[in-house]
């Protein structure tokens, strides 16, 4: 178990290093990164100074090592727009994004699990059919559009929820729904198909043959098995939420990492963009790591090192 943990940790670290190489390389794609890293109106002597500081005369791999070394010490450069270290800014915005993504993920699972279970239990019934149409439609709607429609209906016409901003629990409702809508279809499909397999299994038949009530067979004994494939995918979905949060945060003016990176992009505030994307990647890796470790809780076979 410890060996497994160490191996996964190493893999995760390698992924982050890899991601940083990719991000670094892209920022160097267009030639002179100094132009990207400074505001357009920066005077020539500042540009020259930065060029020397960054060691742009060095080969690319040396440049990367310098960048990585600084990054490891927490130095991602300064944001000129917010006039603070890029790292501090990113760390300041990160919790809001994590909160939004987590609520969105919880929303999607709260919809997908009951739908998936009911679809499987009443296969071919109306929940199964309606659920399919509903889920397919959800998958075909861009999350920002869902967000705009929600604002249109619940903020403008009904005036039930605040249209943008953050601060109260009511603020998180619409962004979370907009963001969590998309993966519902895929999650429902996973739960449904896993549930069908499980309901057909010998142990459920055994449970039924000793008189276990149908309700507890489905919602206790079968569901925990059927949830495993969904839980193994949680990291992927969390990443999807993070990715999607870039647009949704803009729609709802949510003060998170996504909106900050988008704003930084338009301001050509490159240290912030670099740090933000790298952190998003790191969060994805960490999320996957946590998921890998946590489904041992649900599946004892993994806990005991199989």
């Amino acid at each position, binding site marked *: 178990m410890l060996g497994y943990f160490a191996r996964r940790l190493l893999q995760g670290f390698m992924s982050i290093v890899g991601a940083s190489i990719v991000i670094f390389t892209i920022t160097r794609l267009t030639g002179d990164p100094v132009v990207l890293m400074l505001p357009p109106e920066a005077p020539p002597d500042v540009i020259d100074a930065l060029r020397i500081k960054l060691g742009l005369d060095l080969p690319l791999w040396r440049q990367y090592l310098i960048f990585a070394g600084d990054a490891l010490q927490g130095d991602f450069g300064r944001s000129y727009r917010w006039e603070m270290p890029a790292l501090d800014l990113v760390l300041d915005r990160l919790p809001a994004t994590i909160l939004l993504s987590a609520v969105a993920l919880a929303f999607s699972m709260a919809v997908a699990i009951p739908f998936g279970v009911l679809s499987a239990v009443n296969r071919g019934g109306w929940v199964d059919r309606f659920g399919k149409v509903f889920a397919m439609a959800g998958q075909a709607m861009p999350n920002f559009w869902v967000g705009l429609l929600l604002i249109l209906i619940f903020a403008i016409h009904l005036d039930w929820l605040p249209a943008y901003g953050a601060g109260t629990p009511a603020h998180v409702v619409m962004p979370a729904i907009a963001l969590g809508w998309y993966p519902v279809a895929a999650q429902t499909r996973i739960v449904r198909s896993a549930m069908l397999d499980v309901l057909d299994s010998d142990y459920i038949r055994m449970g039924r*043959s*000793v*008189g*276990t*009530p*149908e309700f507890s067979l489905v919602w206790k004994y079968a569901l925990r098995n059927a949830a495993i494939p969904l839980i193994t995918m949680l990291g992927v979905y969390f990443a999807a939420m993070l990715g999607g949060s870039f647009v949704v945060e803009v729609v709802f003016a949510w003060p998170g990492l996504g909106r900050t990176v988008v704003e930084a992009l338009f301001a050509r505030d490159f240290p912030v963009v670099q740090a933000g994307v790298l952190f998003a990647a790191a969060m994805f890796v960490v999320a996957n790591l946590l998921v890998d470790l946590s489904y041992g809780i649900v599946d004892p076979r993994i806990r005991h090192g199989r």
Partner: protein
Amino acid sequence: MTDADAPALAVEDLVMELHLRRGVLRPVDGVSFEVGAGETLGIVGESGSGKSMTCLSILRLLPKPAGRIARGSVRVGGVDLTQLSERELARDWRGRRLSMVTQDPMTSLNPVFTIGDQVGSPLRHHRITRTLRETRARAAAALGRVRIPSPERRLDEYPHQFSGGMRQRAVSAMAIACEPQVMIADEPTSNLDVTIQVKMIELYREIQKETGVAIVLITHDMGVAASICDRVAVMYAGRIVEQGPSRAIFRRPAHPYTQALLDSIPRLGARRKRLFALGGQPPDLLDLPRGCRFAARCPKRMARCDEAYPPEFKLPDGHVSACWLSESEAVHAA
């Protein structure tokens, strides 16, 4: 609730139908037998003969939505289960008064729940135990009864921590936890190796001696049937073709199908394969012959075999055979 004089399990003229798109077929087609308390009945036959479907029909665990009981009765202690609602059946009967051990010990236990939870579940659902402590104590006792060493310690383990033989014991413990009157064991040993098979069979006998449970043992293995059963019923294509005390059946098999089954037991204790002395396949249940269903494969086939299905003939040694060959020796047509 139950009648003390009635046999533990009495199945009469049971017909189970599967309504498929291709047509209606009857995997169980007019099956009757009785098992008394403390008695073991073996149901033998090839795979596909309807043995397993008979068990599932008794517990009414039918494939949904295709399966239904079309006719007949299943009486446990005198109460006809076919007349009960699904809810009553689950609440008061399954796992309580009659239970079932299924084929595969490796897949019959839920991998993500502890042994204690699963063995305790019939106790909880039938409200035999009220508290967690009580449930654990009774579950441990059930594990002890199936000879699992240090049962208290194993309650919190998961199925994957058990060996194949131990899992089958745990499944059996789950089945007998509420001390049912009838236990149906569907090929309980076919996936275990020979030494464990022998131990399991001994275990069932001991449990039977202790609790007086009536056992219906489904098997394709004549050797297993011979070693444990008081009486044997041989099934072919949904019907019982020969039934009686096992001694009589094994000494003087009257039905050619039974004879073929006996011939297929390998000698010298070699590991048996699913080898069958006769060629051919059981008939298609959607396209049954008018006469004897076994006729097409029977070495002793006569003209009249194709004309009518033979009635059951009662033989002098007390067993019953549905074969025209038995007519001459029959005491009277049963």
